[in-house]
């Protein structure tokens, strides 16, 4: 199994940590993983993305130009990454803030209004977990158990109390897509 994912949006949307949880989930099921962020100076407001690879075998290039899945959270990222999804691949996006919806016909496109979902469960910070849930529903590359293990690994112990809330959000995300 090999899954190559790009997650892209604004800084502050939790893009990087979503990728990290996914990567840790991969480790929990004994996979090879890479997590490669775009990085820039500190100033807020720019776009931000991370590519994550989960694979049963050694990973050569962590730099990708085609992805199995693209998770897209703003318009700039849509412009950049829509065409980088492999034919037959998956594109998940939050329509909030999107002015031009994806047009490709050769891939699966999946909308998740995560801002609204987050508002529903009353937790704006869980935004990225809802997206993650939607993704895992579509592609269960990591089991819920391993995601939670990964969450535990990637959060400092003093934040472990937040895990149940995150689990809830992931589930909400799963429920919000078909």
């Amino acid at each position, binding site marked *: 199994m090999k899954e190559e994912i790009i997650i892209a949006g*604004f800084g502050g949307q939790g893009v990087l940590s979503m990728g990290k949880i996914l990567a840790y989930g991969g480790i929990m099921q004994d996979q090879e993983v890479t997590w490669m962020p775009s990085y820039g100076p500190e100033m807020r407001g720019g776009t931000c993305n991370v590519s994550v690879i989960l694979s049963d075998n050694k990973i050569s290039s962590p730099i990708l130009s085609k992805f199995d899945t693209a998770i897209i959270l*703003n*318009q700039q990222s849509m412009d950049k990454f829509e065409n980088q999804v492999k034919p037959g691949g998956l594109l998940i996006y939050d329509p909030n*803030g999107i*002015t031009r919806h994806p047009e490709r016909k050769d891939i699966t496109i999946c909308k998740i209004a995560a801002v609204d979902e987050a508002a529903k469960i009353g937790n704006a910070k869980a935004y990225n977990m809802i997206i993650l849930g939607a993704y895992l529903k579509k592609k269960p590359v990591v089991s819920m158990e391993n995601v939670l293990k990964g969450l535990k690994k990637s959060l400092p112990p003093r934040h472990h109390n937040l895990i149940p809330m995150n689990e809830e959000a992931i589930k909400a995300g799963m429920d919000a897509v078909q």
Partner: protein
Amino acid sequence: MALKGAIVVDTEKCKGCGVCVANCPTNTIALSKEVNSKGYNYLYMANLDNCTGCTNCATVCPDAVITVYRVKI
């Protein structure tokens, strides 16, 4: 003689930092619920009538997105 004012905000450039709001003596301004294309809750005149055109908001705005108008009435 009173002063009456109004401001115009370049909402696309506003970053919603709120520094202006904190410095408005007349409680005229607030941040919108909506976001601009950069994702910021931009500034708007919440209480149109309050503004005296004192320029405080514009003076402290880091992004120089406020223009202030004033008339004597």
